[in-house]
């Protein structure tokens, strides 16, 4: 579904991604793991079109989208749930969700989707008239997730979706991911909670300093002594 080859990206003069290759199969969960600063967020942003690639190609459903504008990528069915929440602080929860469905492909069924999101995150429904900027860190994270779903994406890019969530919520997020996969969504996940992520993942990539160091089925990486030592704290 998504196929990235030779991806390079840089912030000004500093190159952070060096020829990254990976694939995401339709209907699968693919995980990126790696230390701080390895380049996970940068990959996510390149795929979403927020950081422009300085080299390589990104293909989505066979189409080359390397140079496509970010909003066209959303409309093509590719949606980023960014790290650090990025909600619309002055708008209500409901307006935030509504804005999630601004891409043409999502407009039609947005009210049904809204109910769906509220079902998954009852806390959001409780606070639907609350200004997003006044919510707690975790609540904002839920909102970002919900807003991403509103775009009815086929491929969801989740950058650390459990950051700052209480365990009960983390569990729920992983359950949601699981459900989304079952429902036919494709997911690319960057996660520090490496163990759960790897358990869940169909395929995983380990990044080191902007390069893919290791890849394979999630369970393989989970079993790799190197990964266990460096990323799972064992």
């Amino acid at each position: 579904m998504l196929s990235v080859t030779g991806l390079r990206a840089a912030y000004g003069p500093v190159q952070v991604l060096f020829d990254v290759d990976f694939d995401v199969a339709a209907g699968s969960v693919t995980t990126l793991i790696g230390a701080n600063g390895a380049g996970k967020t940068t990959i996510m942003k390149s795929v979403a079109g927020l950081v422009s690639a300085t080299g390589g190609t990104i293909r989505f459903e066979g189409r080359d989208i390397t140079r496509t504008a970010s909003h066209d990528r959303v409309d093509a069915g590719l949606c980023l749930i960014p790290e650090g929440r990025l909600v619309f602080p002055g708008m209500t929860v409901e307006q935030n969700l509504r804005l999630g469905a601004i891409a043409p492909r999502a407009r039609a069924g947005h009210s049904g989707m809204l109910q769906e999101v509220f079902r998954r995150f009852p806390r959001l429904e409780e606070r639907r008239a609350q200004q997003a900027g006044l919510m707690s860190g975790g609540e904002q994270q839920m909102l970002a997730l919900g807003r991403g779903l509103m775009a009815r994406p086929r491929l969801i890019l989740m950058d650390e979706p459990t950051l700052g969530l209480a365990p009960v919520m983390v569990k729920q997020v992983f359950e949601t991911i699981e459900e989304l996969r079952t429902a036919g969504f494709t997911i690319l996940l960057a996660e520090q909670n490496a163990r759960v992520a790897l358990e869940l993942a169909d395929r995983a990539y380990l990044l080191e300093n902007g390069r893919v160091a290791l890849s394979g089925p999630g369970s393989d990486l989970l079993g790799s002594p190197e990964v266990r030592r460096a990323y799972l704290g064992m």
Partner: protein
Amino acid sequence: MAFLDITGVSKRFGGLMALSDVSLQVEKGEIFGLMGANGAGKTTLFSVIAGHVAPSAGEVVFNGTRLTGLSPSRICRLGLCRTFQIVRPFAGLTVAENLRVAALYGSGRKLSAVEIARVVDAALEAVDLSDRRHLDAAQLTLSGQKRLEIARALATGAQLVMLDEVMAGLNPTEVSAMLATLERLRGDHRLTFVIVEHVIGALMTLSDRILVLDHGECIAFGTPEEIGNHDRVAEVYFG
């Protein structure tokens, strides 16, 4: 009297009771854990203590001084400093400059240039940012900025440091390193910590005692072990 003594603190935001009648005591040299679901009021409590938000009721006494009504900078100079869950680095300054400001102002004393440099180096060392000291803070990754938050709080020379989810975004190996660092800081510098963390392993290992908030109310208090076995906590927090 306890090092940090909070009695009957409440905070109302419009119709929402973010904190109701919270009391707790933190002893010197202790690591005190604060736990609770999202939106339970943990960050709000930090804000009240650090002087960013005025409580609707109750009072906070630190090291024998009543903090209510004092400005955050005053409170910092008394030796109490917090970090921000949603990071606030001095984005346009380098990492080292971020810490220099904290060292210059945090203690309320005039330090010599040599002392400042030492404080900055020590703080960089503690969070393992020495090799990034010349980067602008904006160039750090999110977790790098979280570590900068800790370093900056340390550089103020505070005796009590409140850490708000500084381990979010670290992988388990990095978390263990951070745990070691905090333990060392407590041992070497006799620092006191109040920490909020959803990385439960870390909180359990580190804390001497834990208070659990839910919807602004204290629902449990005790050693990590006691909390781990608490029914109500399991229900609202661990799920």
